[in-house]
């Protein structure tokens, strides 16, 4: 039991397209040992959540004793799965971190095509959020920074530039709301 003094743990993170096909997935638990069981789980989760409106706020459901937090943007469906006694809000923070980081990395063009074209960034992003089920980082901008940090030293700071831009936009936005 997670509340029995255990560390919060993530069972999987899924990024599927609007037909339920994989864009990128990462499993951290042995609950789904084969590729077929993984695909079956993805199909099940996808079909169960398809009709819900998870575009403005992250939604949540309980399926087969797993809590699944999900959010949709354009033709991408983001999912984070945890055990049924996990703190829902911790799972939600992981999803939010993943989502924010992807938004930054894809320069706000969050759709399937962009995601596939930058699949390396998405995979690195998954790698920086959770390690073997243990949460590494939930802060979106920090995750994005870790993913792109190699460009700090390299000479082609393309994605870093966009990150700076993103930061600037965010700062601007914040000042505007504060001044209101």
């Amino acid at each position: 039991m997670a509340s029995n003094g255990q560390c919060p743990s993530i069972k999987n993170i899924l990024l599927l397209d609007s037909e339920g096909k994989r864009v990128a997935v990462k499993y951290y638990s042995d609950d789904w040992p084969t590729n077929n069981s993984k695909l079956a789980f993805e199909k099940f989760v996808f079909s169960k959540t398809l009709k819900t409106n998870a575009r403005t706020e992250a939604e949540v459901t309980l399926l087969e004793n797993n809590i699944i937090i999900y959010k949709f943007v354009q033709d991408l469906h983001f999912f984070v799965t945890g055990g049924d006694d996990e703190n829902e809000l911790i799972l939600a923070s992981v999803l939010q971190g993943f989502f924010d980081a992807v938004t930054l990395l894809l320069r706000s063009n969050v759709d399937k095509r962009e995601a596939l074209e930058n699949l390396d960034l998405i995979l690195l992003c998954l790698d920086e959020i959770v390690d073997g089920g243990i949460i590494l980082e939930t802060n979106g901008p920090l995750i994005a920074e870790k993913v792109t940090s190699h460009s700090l030293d390299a000479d082609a700071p393309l994605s870093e530039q966009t990150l700076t831009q993103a930061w600037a936009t965010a700062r601007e936005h914040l000042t505007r709301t504060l001044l209101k």
Partner: protein
Amino acid sequence: MAQPLVKKDDDRDDEADYSPFLGIEKGAVLQEARVFNDPQLDARRCSQVITKLLYLLNQGESFTKVEATEVFFAVTKLFQSRDLGLRRMVYLMIKELSPCADEVIIVTSSLMKDMNSKTDMYRANAIRVLCRITDGTLLTQIERYLKQAIVDKNPVVASAALVSGIHILQTNPEIVKRWSNEVQEAVQSRAALVQFHALALLHQIRQNDRLAVSKLVTSLTRGSVRSPLAQCLLIRYTSQVIREAGNNTQAGDRPFFDFLESCLRHKSEMVIFEAAKAITELNGVTSRELTPAITVLQLFLSSSKPVLRFAAVRTLNKVAMTHPMAVTNCNIDMESLISDQNRSIATLAITTLLKTGNESSVERLMKQITNFMSDIADEFKIVVVEAIRSLCLKFPLKYRSLMNFLSSILREEGGFEYKKAIVDSIVILIRDIPDAKESGLLHLCEFIEDCEFTYLSTQILHFLGVEGPKTSDPSKYIRYIYNRVHLENATVRASAVSTLAGFGAAVDALKPRIFVLLRRCLFDSDDEVRDRATLYLNTLGGDGLGTENDRKDFLFGSLDVPLVNLETSLKNYEPSEEAFDINSVPKEVKSQPLAEKKAPGKKPTGLGAPPSGPPSTADSYERLLLSIPEFANFGKLFKSSAPVELTEAETEYAVNVVKHIFDRHIVFQYNCTNTIPEQLLEDVNVIVDASEAEEFSELFSKPLRSLPYDSPGQTFVAFEKPEGLPTTGKFSNTLKFIVKEVDPTTGEAEDDGVEDEYQLEDLEVVSADYIVKVGVSNFRNAWESMGPDCERVDEYGLGARESLAEAVNTVINLLGLQPCEGTEAVPPNSRSHTCLLSGVFIGNVKVLVRLSFGLDGPKDVAMKLSVRSDDETVSDAIHEIVASG
């Protein structure tokens, strides 16, 4: 799967489904991977190829051993490149390939070099990769670096080392335990996530040392924990400490609980929720402790975030199971959640409301649920149906609206499991609430008119055949049943024929009309249907053999041998001149102490259970006793107790006893099991010493001829006792038998046996044995109609008790009566409680009891006991039970 998923899209919709991986093929990508071997590395190109390989793996493609090894060796070449982006991809690739031990050695030196690099990102990632792929032997080599990394000033590096430590702890705990000092230092880190990871690791290192965990928690709850995640961990550890400390912390200072409560005021919702959840899950939490947690959860209920609403309503739903009163404050917020967009939230809200609702709100709730049922999934509907079933049993007066609701959802679309849940619920209501019978049966009739599930149709038809003839106007069901004979498949037709015959046999007035219908069935296209019709027509109509009762018994009486025994006997029967004799089937029931223990007091539910299914234990006891001629003149069996174990678990001989109470007799049925394969027991008998039960006199005992290994048998001892009185006493028992050795190879027993004895535990006959639990649906009506003529009222002091609930339970168990209207549940922290009980006393005297409890002083419980019955001696007897208990 030779081709990746994307390939399929190829010919369907190129434009919309454009993907950079369109038409990708494993073979081609593996070819491309040769660029890794180029002397002049093109970092960009290599990154792209790795991404393609990772894409293939991610889509579920797998590499053969040879392919994986080839790719691995090629990838190791890329350590030559100084491109950071490429190196990151190399790390990822190595983790995905999870190389075997001798391959790991190839990359170890490169990774160790990176672990000492000046670039933070290299250090962090190299640690994670190396710890992932390495085995124990290498760990000692890199341990020094890992210890250093834990206290690295870069938080990413420190976290990488700590998280790796958590993983390694599972396989090589002794190594990680040596890092305690460094980890402890990291707990003090200013970086939020480092503190979280360090705390998790430190706790895991020390988790078996309670004192250390307690100290750790104490020091941290005082200090400041930076990240919400670490705070959540601390809450979990704190509630663990509270749990393990048990009740010792009840009085006075409670720093740990105070910490949990203070977390309810934290600025992060994650922490607030974790604390609220922890408080609600504490053992023996009181209402006062619950209140602040419930209050924050109530605030979450109206949040704009679905996740918060879900988390809160789910926790409150759990609280409602144990502390329904504590949650009632949230009912208004809950009701607005019934229309929540998120159906999981709506269902949880509904079921919570059904648990906490009172009688007056039932109708309003039903209305709201009706609107919402149509658009939730079947599994949620089943949850709702089950909640409604228990609500109906709690408030039997409301059966009308609940039954209407069930019948209306029964008419709507739904899968088998859902329909079965509804039908089961209706059947249970029909059985437990007599007033609901007629309307319930009609609903079931209407349902089979349009039922696509053969299983449900046949079960309902059978149930109709049992219950229908007992109603005031059985003829109205005939039409529904006969329609089945026209419209359904053979299985349903056959069971409809049986049901019709059941009506014909039970109701004489209907008999001629039923015969007309049955004759029509003689022309059915199916053998089974025709056979059944012929059988019923000839046995019921003809003046054949035996009396009418005999014939009815033959057709509809239950089989007086257990099915299992019949099955084994039939299997052993070899076709010969001699016909199979049903009397040769052993009637003794195999006792099933295990199954009975698993479901203590649990009512059989649904269609598969009595009366339509296998006979209940009471029925089977009765039949078993009747089959023994010596007991035949004892009259009607009044009550059979639950089995009482007379031996410890896992002893040589397992014995439990069932007490059968008759008007003037009592029979002890000893169920014995021999658990030694090498022994055969013969002439098994229980010697009962009744010297402490003077009013009982032993009549006779019925020994068990033989008791082979693992095949339970029964022996009986009968006593005479004063008529109609709740005579009590204590009996000591000794098992007496002759042991014969069994040759394990041949399974044959030796001829000579040795007499032996085995001491069993004592057995008591108590007053509660003379009372049968029978509920009444409306206690007040029953109470008033009974009148005050034979009422006996008295007050008792029960002395100091652990809690009011405990006192109430003790008295209920002492009296062995059925609690009515859910009054056995005592709301937490109440100072007084009224409990209503009903039952039947030996001699078939109905008894109603009203118990009023009050707390007198801090722990002392006082009780006022009012008894009404048809016989004042019985009322007095109840008082005596309490007075002497």
